[in-house]
């Protein structure tokens, strides 16, 4: 079967799956009564509603013709992978390695995500970012952030 709209197909599918997942997960909790809804009632009802709306979108994507099939445009894998990785590295690094080691790594990852492949620039940016972050946040605002790795502290 040919998809009439790729975008609608995938968003519809996403809604149905998320909705059903919420509805299914909420069956483990008390539904309560109508006067005193339990913790399971709202997620169950909203999950079913979302799945229903997703079903409508899905139906539309299979039945109703759209302009040029509304394809999902190409995914930019480099930033899609590197930006979340950079964010996670920040979260993992800060409490363990401290600001002075984490910020340069995150900066270089960000530069890579931006398609900057000249190392000289990446190193320069990493140094600048670290010095600025240290000067503003630690020296200027006296924020309680770890500066050095736990081994040194």
């Amino acid at each position, binding site marked *: 079967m040919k998809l009439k709209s790729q*975008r*609608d197909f*995938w*968003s519809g599918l996403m*809604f149905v799956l*998320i*909705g059903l997942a*919420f509805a299914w997960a*909420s069956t483990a*909790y008390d539904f309560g*009564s*109508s*006067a*005193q*809804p339990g*913790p399971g009632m*709202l*997620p169950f009802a*909203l*999950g079913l*509603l*979302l799945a229903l*709306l*997703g079903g*409508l*979108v899905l139906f*539309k994507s299979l039945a109703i013709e759209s302009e040029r099939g*509304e394809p*999902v*445009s*190409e*995914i*930019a894998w*480099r*930033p*899609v992978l590197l*930006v*979340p*990785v*950079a*964010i*996670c590295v*920040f*979260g*993992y690094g*800060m*409490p363990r390695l401290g600001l002075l080691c984490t*910020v340069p790594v*995150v*900066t270089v990852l*960000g530069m890579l*995500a*931006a*398609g900057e492949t000249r190392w000289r620039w990446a190193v320069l*940016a990493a140094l600048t*970012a670290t010095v600025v*972050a240290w000067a503003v*946040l630690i020296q200027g605002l006296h*924020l309680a*952030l770890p500066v050095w790795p736990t081994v040194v502290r």
Partner: protein
Amino acid sequence: MDLLSNLSLGLHMALAWPQLLAAVAGSLLGLLTGVLHRLRPVTMIALLLPLVPMLDTGVALILLVGIHCGARYGAAAAMLMTQPAEPGVFGVSPLAAQAHALTIQGRGAAMLRLGAVAGFVAACGGLLLIVLLAPPLTELAFRFGAAEVFSLMVLGLVGSAALAGGSLVGSLGMAVLGLLLTQIGRVPQSDLLKQGIGVIPLAIGLFAAGEVIINLGRAAQARRERIVPELVAGRWPTRSDLREAWTAVLRGTLTGSVLGLLPGASTMLAAVSSYGLERRAAAGPVAGAMGPEAARHAAVQTTLLPVLTLGIPSSATTALLVAAMTIKGLQAGPLLMTGQPSLFWGLIASIWIGNVVLLAVGLSLAGVWDRLLTISYRRFAVPVLLLCCFGVYLGGGERAIYLTAVAALMGYFFHKLRAQVAPLLLGFILGPMMEENLRRALQLADGEWSVFASRPLSLGLLMTALLLLVLVLLPKIRSRRQTVFREEG
């Protein structure tokens, strides 16, 4: 006179040094956000959200509202000077094309100055409407019981989905998804989700970090999107410009003030409606550009009215304002004006002061924006990324950072599927309040769901929501809605 004493109370609060500084800083930051390539006001507000707990309540709100209002003027500069991008994909918006044509004729700086005046006039008009309507609306809101508040929030959510771009059912789905996200963490589930999802990681992830991915992805497609002509600095609008524009500005102010009260993408709706109005009146190019400009500014001010009086945000930026109030332990809604009159009226006065700043900057610096506009997004991708990380980490620690990474990915894929993120954020912000009012209404009515239909005011609000859905689905309005949101491109 009640009005005058209120305003003097507001001015008294707004003219203290910290508040004055916040108003100026917010407006300038907003201005910069609007001018710079592809930064949006909602991104800037999300980035500043982690600062809110450290600031005084009034200062924090003034700062955020300043960005909300200032970004509009910057966006006007960007629109005047850039080639409407990507023809054929969304269709070139006639308004942007016309504005750009004026710049090519060497009238860019003059139009920016005229735009600053038009914006100021419109902002005054919009603020006047707020000042006049806020007390009666607040009084009305006090008469609302839990059932009415719930129905009003349903109307707000449905309206924001109906008047947002993209598919209606998809936007409704996003709103429901936002509501569902508030349910996570109510009962112990997994370790990661035990404490629920915070608004700061969600907003920063979806908007700021998600946008970093979106924009870097765009840059990777290696296409020069905008052609920025040089501004001819030092030009002022002529007398004939003024004569041509002033009726259009007044018409635009009126249109914008009223349409700004609607939920959804109401500023855009205001600009497009005003443009259509000027076209029908066969107005010249200057009036055709200034009417929508005024409408947009007026609408930006009046979008604040439903938030400040009823507690119902209508856009992503105003939803983040509600989040900021919640962080400060304030309840958006009628209690704001009666419980904290100096804060409420101080906020209004600060918005006016911010607009004076924008007028002054707009008149004096109209010749330098072209240099800012050519900065590519790649230059500030890394600083924005670091700001996201530090902001989230300071507020929520390691766990919040991982949530942000997930939200950033979600933001990117929603963008790819053309799913609207604003209804999701609105659902997320309104969710807890809706649930509380739902529970209270049901409790009072002994579990009778009919309570929402048997109380006339509540029934009226729900019927309005239903009517809105039916209207949007009508073929004629549907095609018009699509042309309106093509402007978003």
